[in-house]
């Protein structure tokens, strides 16, 4: 697996290129790139508090990247993780403010189960459509994201609207249902630990279970998989449901640990950033961990760098955008293979 791990560190090159471009931009506007980039690094990793903020920002990405990688690894181009994240989060928050607070911490596992079921069912649908009817999963999952946004938007403006609040938010969850903060005052919460567990579980599944093995074979060559007796439709549905479950966990973690209520804009594109992480990491768990932390660092450094310099947040956008271009190249490479395979069948 040495080589796979090396490839998974493919995030290093994009990052170097991104920093080079950022440096050029800084030079042209007459700033000292070394100074600014050092400031950014300090803001992301400089001390325990800043590091905690970085990890906090990376938490949702751990889940969405794993959820994406599970599917991409099997050649299933699921781009619907964002929708499952949002609806999973909404389901968990709903449980966490409607059930009686007297249940205590027991609400937390119930909320996570609700989120997993919601996310799993949500992506089960495009999984079945792909496995049984060969409906293009890119289209179906992308569309489901809009539907998820629509459903959650309706619910938080209608039936689930908080009576104490103007618009767009649900009531706050019970305090007992909140995930514990690991390093107050930072927002880093126990969801980060759950995310790490998900990464380890994903790794174990890949390496040490027959269905994980089948997932890899289907991703490498579906025709071969079919010929040796692996049920390709069953694998497709399985990875879609697993992806939905992990995405749902992500939503629950974000809802119970970070937001404590659901509001419009619950996910500022975590699903898509997670996809970039999975692509750059080539689905490898270690790469996913690094990638998620790096994207988290950019996000947390970006928010504070505006305060301490006259560099606008857009610098971070430039860096993220450059890294994204590499992710898109990787995506295009996968898509090309995918097309070739569907034609070969």
């Amino acid at each position, binding site marked *: 697996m040495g080589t796979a791990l090396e490839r998974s560190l493919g995030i290093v090159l994009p990052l170097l290129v991104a920093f080079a471009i950022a440096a050029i931009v800084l030079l042209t506007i007459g700033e000292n790139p070394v100074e600014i980039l050092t400031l950014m690094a300090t803001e992301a990793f400089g001390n325990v508090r800043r590091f905690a903020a970085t990890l906090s920002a990376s938490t949702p990405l751990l889940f969405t990247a794993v959820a994406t990688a599970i599917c991409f690894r099997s050649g299933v181009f699921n781009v619907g993780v964002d929708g499952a994240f949002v609806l999973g989060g909404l389901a968990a928050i709903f449980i966490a403010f409607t059930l009686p607070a007297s249940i205590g911490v027991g609400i937390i596992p119930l909320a996570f189960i609700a989120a997993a079921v919601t996310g799993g069912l949500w992506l089960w649908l495009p999984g079945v459509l792909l496995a049984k009817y060969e409906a293009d999963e890119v289209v179906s999952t992308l569309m489901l994201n809009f539907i998820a946004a629509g459903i959650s938007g309706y619910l938080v403006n209608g039936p689930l609207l908080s009576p104490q609040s103007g618009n767009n938010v649900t009531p706050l969850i019970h305090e007992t249902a909140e995930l514990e903060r690991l390093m107050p005052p930072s927002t880093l919460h126990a969801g980060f630990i759950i995310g790490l567990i998900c990464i380890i579980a994903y790794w174990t599944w890949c390496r040490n279970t*027959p269905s994980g093995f089948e997932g890899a074979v289907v991703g490498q060559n579906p025709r071969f998989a079919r010929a040796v*007796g692996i049920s390709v439709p069953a694998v497709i549905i399985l990875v879609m449901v697993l992806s939905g479950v992990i995405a749902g966990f992500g939503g629950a973690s974000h809802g119970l640990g970070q937001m404590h209520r659901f509001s419009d804009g619950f996910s500022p594109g975590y699903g898509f950033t997670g996809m970039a992480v999975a692509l750059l990491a080539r689905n490898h768990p270690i790469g996913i961990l690094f990638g998620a932390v790096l994207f988290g660092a950019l996000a947390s450094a970006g928010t504070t760098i505006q305060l301490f310099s006259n560099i606008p947040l857009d610098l971070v956008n430039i860096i993220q955008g450059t890294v994204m271009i590499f992710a898109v190249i990787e995506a295009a490479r996968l898509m090309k293979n995918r097309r070739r395979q569907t034609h070969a069948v």
Partner: protein
Amino acid sequence: MRLLQGVERPDGGEIFVDGVRVDFTNPGDALRHGIGMVHQEFMIAPDLSLLENLVLGEEPVKRSCGPLSWIDWPAARNQGQALAEQIGALIDWDQHAANAPVHILQFVEIIRLLRRGCRTLILDEPTAVLAPVQVDELFTLLRNLRTQGTALLFISHKIGEVTALADEVTVIRQGETVFHSSVAECTADEISRHIVNGELHDVANDEAPKPQSELLSIASLNTRSVNRSHTLHNISLTIGRGEILGIAGVSGNGQNELAECLVGLRPSSGLVKLNGIALSALNPSQRRRHGIAYISADRRHEGLSIQSSIETNVVAGSHRTSPIGHGGWLNRAAMRKIAQDRLQALDIKYDGPSDPVSSLSGGNQQKLVFAREIATAPQVLIASQPTRGVDLNGIAAIHQLIRDFRDSGGAVLLISEELDELIELSTRVAVIAEGTIVGTVNAPASNLPLIGRMMVQGAAV
């Protein structure tokens, strides 16, 4: 064919057009000299109308000013219609290409080449995709073309078509011209003899043990396929224990479909029984559990997962059975051990089990496929083109593996385009042509000419 098209350069020899020596470096050159090719796969944009397809790439323009030019549609239609009438084709130019029947698309291809001034047309197995009625229409059209002075190079495996259409015939075998005659002066038998002639050297059929009880029986197997005319009609075969049944046939006559139906990769009707157990309703994995093993003709895409590791390739399919799959877990140590055992059993040389399988030679790749397939002690081996792309030593090893499998009481369905191989190994040979079994030959070694005739003349024998 590719040389005439300018796709490949000749190593020697010359091409003359109208007595002038020409040198083609690309397909455009060939077109400029009036040589056009109708491919087996049509160059058609399915979303456009037939007229749009006709002029695609060479649109007649009204006002020539770069990207602002106007396409002169009436002119295009007139040109197309004139050519169509000239050769006797009825074409609805406004029809969507996706909805047009295959032979009409073929006509549009031909008219497109004529419009570009082609006087020599190369047709590569044009009838492979056509229904019999459409073939008749195509032939009428080709005869018209001939009377109008177009030279036709008609490539076909079917002797009946050649004798019906051509003036002269040339037999090419393994890149060499072995026979040339005018059609009027030779018979179909003579042509077919030349096609298989080279394979008539003495091949010893070692004494195969007499087949015992019937193991695999296939009764009236039928299948259809969407984009090929060669489906399977009413295939009935039986194979006994300790028997190798050879399937001979010209490439693309339903061999792959037959193998896929038996393995469960392609839906089919009819009855397939293994040891009296009906397999017809079972999926590939269930059929494997009943003892079917499969050597795919397409080693690079189906027989192997070419980018995956040697280990993955040699254990795939056994990953759920103990000791690899155990209690819901995958025992990677057991997996490695089994992979090594299987590779060692067949004496396959490799560096490391994690290396991609593409690092092995063709022969070793195919031996690896055998290692995987026979490791589970199957009863029936469906071996499709097992020695394709394998070096001589590898061929010998694979033949021995097939014999060993037979000697251990297994039944083998051996599909091959190599007659030598079929005759050397098979107890009996069944000949497939256009999706039907046209006959079964006992004692194949002494009946080679008969097999050859059945292969190329189909049921007409």
